[in-house]
């Protein structure tokens, strides 16, 4: 029982140390703050603006299932372009 509690404490300590690593790391950053702002802006543009507005998955958004997608590609590739 005591050993189980000890192991649990160790796991909690490890988890806490990992969280502290990130929290303290972000808190003490100098140049990193500018970089993180840039990263967040970039990720927002890539995943929210570009992906959602400009880059829908053509086959997923136009066809409901794999059989229809396969049929569309077959139709496309059967006709010489």
């Amino acid at each position, binding site marked *: 029982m005591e050993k189980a509690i000890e192991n649990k404490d160790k796991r909690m300590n490890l988890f806490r140390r990992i969280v502290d690593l990130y929290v303290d790391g972000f808190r003490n950053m100098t140049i990193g703050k500018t970089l993180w702002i*840039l990263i967040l802006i970039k990720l927002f543009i890539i995943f929210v603006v570009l992906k959602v507005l400009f*880059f829908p998955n*053509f086959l997923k958004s136009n066809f409901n299932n794999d059989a229809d997608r396969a049929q569309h590609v077959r139709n496309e590739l059967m006709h010489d372009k």
Partner: protein
Amino acid sequence: MNDLMSLVDWSRAQFALTAIYHWLFVPLTLGLAVIVGIMETIYYKTRDAKWLGTTKFWMTLFGINFAIGVATGIILEFEFGTNWSNYSWFVGDIFGAPLAVEGIIAFFMESTFIAVMFFGWKKVGPGFHLASTWLTGLGATISAFWILVANSWMQYPVGMKFDPEQMRNVMESFSAVALSPVALNKFFHTVLSGWTLGAVFVIGVSAWFLLKKRNNEMAIRSIKIASWVGLAGIVLTIFTGDGSAKVVSRVQPMKLAAMEGLYHGQCGQSITAFGILNPNKCCTNNENEYLLNISMPKGLSFLATGDPNAFVPGINDLIDGIEITQNGDTVHNVSYADRIALGKQAHEALKAFDTAKKKGDKAAMDIARAAIEKNFQYFGYGYLDSPSEAVPNVPMTFYAFRVMVTLGGYFLLFFVVVLFLVYKKKSILADNKWLQWIAILSIPAVWICSEAGWITAELGRQPWAIEGLMPNKAAISDIPSSSVVLTFFIFAVIFTALLIAELSIMFKQISKRSKENIDNAKI
């Protein structure tokens, strides 16, 4: 047809733009990771504050590059789904599997260990920190491996079988895909060229420190490490480049012929050391290939096969079906005109399969399936109108190859000279402004060299999205070209802004840190 070509051209331009920008960041990450790892290893062994300061300085520049470059490659995957949907479906899981492995490994290894690398100096022991630094670099390298496996499969499609019912290629051998000779050569050639690029960057920035007379000792220390890494990198890059040429001569002989501007090959074929192509030459006329050609006798035969007297086919020879085999033997293979006919037969068989499928006629489906399989290796040729369509852009491939090779030769000389100076004539390196400026100006040159390598590899395989199986015009989605044009310019703006941001932050950081005493560092 004009609309289709416009769509294909804009989609290619967009992909090229994204890939070229992405490749500005990646090789620096690969190269700096090794150099920073060596520096920290020396610090770990000596516990000398000077090495700690040196490590931390270059680690900061590594972090800036990593932060700006991270996720720029994801956009390429978006483009596959939107602009290249026929391709994305057709390649099935073969292309997706390496990219998925890359995503998992890149995410877990790089994101975990880079946090320890930057946040962990006071939180973890020196050994664990050192391991994290190396594992970050290893993660980036493994990530590069899987991306290059995917790219190599497009150049040399192996390990799969086409299933007309699913209309996609199904993987039969993961090891054949992951360990193909193209993938292995491309991986080593590319990653080692990243070491070269990182080393030139470190030497160039250090030369700027020497020019400004700031932190001279740190600069000399950095140049010593970078020169060894760079010399190892460039020697091995040249060695693996030679291996790549031999593989290309067998699996993509048209690319090799385009790299040389060679239309009619011969035994003991020379290689062009310096040349100007005749812009009017094409595979359907008899004009001279070059306006000026300074060549090395038997050089191409040796480069391509290891035998100085071997036959190397030119563009017209290949169109006529003359190739060299795995053993280096010259054979009369299927001409491109016949390949087009056989490809069209495969298309007809696919149509028969489709008709049979709609009727639910299993026997007819099996017959059609067998007919597709028989000519599937020529499936892509069926989309070509004439053999000349299978010829890549010769001038761009030819000149890009020469830019890469010439600069590669320059960097070999560069590292030898820098190593000699830094160990034997340190005062010349520390005081000679000409040398310092040459080192600084070598920084843009190494990026040009690296990008020229990619241009050679990717333009040389045109018109294929997948070699022999799918040309670009069959790979494209049925979307309006105007949407691709719009996103092309959006990307151009975003990537240019990111590049300006990186350069601006990096220049400021280098300038600011150069005024501090970098050697006086603390954990």
